[in-house]
Structures are given as C-alpha cells and as structure tokens.
C-alpha cells in the first residue's frame, strides 16, 4: 500500500482527511464502533467492528504525535462521551444526593440512564 500525505482533522466524532492543498475534505470516517490500535512506534490504525480486518493506517511524524492521536481518537466517539456523562452523573449523585442533569432539564432522557446503552 502506498502512503499518501494527508491533512487529518478530528471534528466531533468524525475524522476528516484532506489533500494538503485543498479546502474540501476528500473523505471522512465516522468514529463509532471502531478500534484504535498503535501498530508501530509512529503508526496507528483504525478498524471497524463490522469489518475488523480492514485497517485504515496512519503514519505519524513522531511517536509522540502517534500517541497523541491514539489517545484523542479513543475518546472521540459519541458513545464514549455518553458513557462519561453517565459516569459523572452517577458520581455526583452519589456525593450530593442530587441529580446534576436536572438543571439542564435532561434528567429523564432515556439515553442518559444508568444501565442504558451497554454494549
């Protein structure tokens, strides 16, 4: 496989990639149900649950940059954010006896209930 130089941007749960001199992205990857793996010191890959053998590989300039990306991408999914919210909500509720989501008017939403969205 040939390596092509790309500008890569992580925006919410999408990884956009651009040709370095263009304003419009050539493609994007939705980062849900995916696995981020550090392959070599400066190479990481993204693979998706429904097609695990297919790896999107990215080579970074340095190992440090690679580590940064792996950390960021592991936390990029909406599902990860949801789990964090449920966790913090539960912790705060345990400590104060109050539901911190009440002030936002979203405490009843099914998507934030403890035990929801176990995968």
């Amino acid at each position, binding site marked *: 496989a040939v390596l092509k130089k790309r500008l890569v941007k992580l925006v919410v749960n999408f990884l956009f990639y651009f040709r370095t001199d263009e304003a419009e992205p050539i493609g994007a990857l939705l980062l849900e149900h995916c696995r981020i793996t550090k392959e070599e010191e400066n190479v990481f890959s993204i693979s998706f649950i429904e097609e695990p053998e297919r790896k999107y590989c990215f080579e970074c300039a340095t190992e440090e940059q690679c580590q940064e990306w792996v950390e960021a991408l592991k936390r990029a999914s909406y599902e990860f954010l949801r789990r964090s919210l449920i966790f*913090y909500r539960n912790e705060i509720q345990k400590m104060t006896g109050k539901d911190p989501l009440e002030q936002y008017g979203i405490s009843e939403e099914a998507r934030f209930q403890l035990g929801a969205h176990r995968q």
Partner: protein
Amino acid sequence: MKLNERSLAFYATCDSPADNAGFLYKRGERHTAYHRRWFVLKGNMLFYFEERDSREPVGVIVLEGCNVELCDSAEGFAFAIRFGGTKSRTYVLAAESQEAMESWVKSLSRASFDYLRLVVRELEKQLQEMRWGLPGGCGGSREPAGPWKPKPSGLEQSRERLPALPAILPKENGCAVWNNVLGADRAPDTSGCGGHDEEGSPRPPPPLPPRRRVSNGEAASAGAAVAESPSTFCRLHEQYSREVARLRQDWQQRQRGPRP
C-alpha cells in the same frame, strides 16, 4: 466526499438502542411532496429508512451546528433542521402528532456532540471541585445563561473554524482530571449543600461566613488565583477551617440557648 458508509449503515442498524425512532414525513429536496420515512436517531446521526424493516438507511443527517425550529407553515406538526453555510439545505420534517413533533424537536436539538461535550465538561468540573473541595461552596453549579446552544462547529462551516483536536482531553475514561479552569467564573453556591450535616441532626447548617457572599467577580478571581498555587490553597484552607470551626461553635452555643 468519501465516507465509511458501511460503518455508518452498521451504526444505524446495529442493536445499540436508538435515542429516538419513529415515522416522520420528509419533504423532498427538489419536489415539495412529503415522503413517509422511518427515522432513527443515534447519537448525533439522524438516519432515515424507506421502510421500518429496511436493511440499510437511504440517508443520514449529521446533527452538528444546526438549529431545530418549528415551522409556521400550513403543514401540521412540521419542523425544520437548518444548517448554516451557503451550500446547506434545510430539512423539513413533519410528525404525525403534536406530541411526536415536540418529542422529536426536543431530542434533535440536544443530539449534537457539541452539546453533549458541554454538559460532560460541566459535570467534570463539578466533580473535580467537589473532590478537591475548592472554596466557594460545595458542588456549586453555575446557572446556565439560557438554553444550551451547541457551539457552531457544523460540518458545513468554513474550514478555519474547525479545530484539529479536541481542546481539552480527559486523561482517562471516566476519571476526574485537573481542568485548567478551576472554579473561575463560578458563582458561589449559597443555596447550601444537601445532606452534609455531620452531626446527623435535623438542624439546618450554620450560615456561610459573610465573606463568601461576595459578588461573582471577586470570588471568581480569588478562586481562580489561589487554585493555581497549592501552598496558598493549603493556607487558605487552614484559615477557612478555623473560621468555620469558630462560627460553628458560636452557632451551637446560640442553639443551646443562654447559659443559666
């Protein structure tokens, strides 16, 4: 633009629970006829299928940087998903009842990743402050200025506004971390904390020392300044604890009534 469509289709149809699902009428792009479609909201993605049991979605709307509004058109129970940017289209949808319309508008307007991230950061901040016991009251929560508005970082926005990486990265899944804005611009919570009476008695807690009722600005800058230095924080902590102990003593004596 290429997209990992197979992964998207998987996300749409896998058995992870949807945040909302139901039939909606969708107005066509070129022709104004409405088509009935099965809609599934998962995270910040609104998928639509031709039929409820279709194996693949026919389309998806990514709910970032958009506004969800009611339509004042003649069509009953209609609402629109509007994006900024010159090339973006507005999606006009209609529900089959008032209740369904309200439920969809509510869930769609809070579906964005941006919105969720704001809420998570707020909770993270609250939890840190509770665990580290910053001055200014326990678990003080900032009153939101108004309804949460997602930051406009829509996919249709101009490129210069897109960040390369999330600005603040949590260190570990679910663990509290030092946030670089500790207690700043946070109004002290004078409503009191529930359930923290050490004595376990039903008496209300003593009033906060008068110093704490300063204006938001003063408390905020004081809070932010001292949070930077652990040694000053310790000193302040000591000071406050002595004062609290003294006040508590005074209050208890008053509760017991004048000595005979």
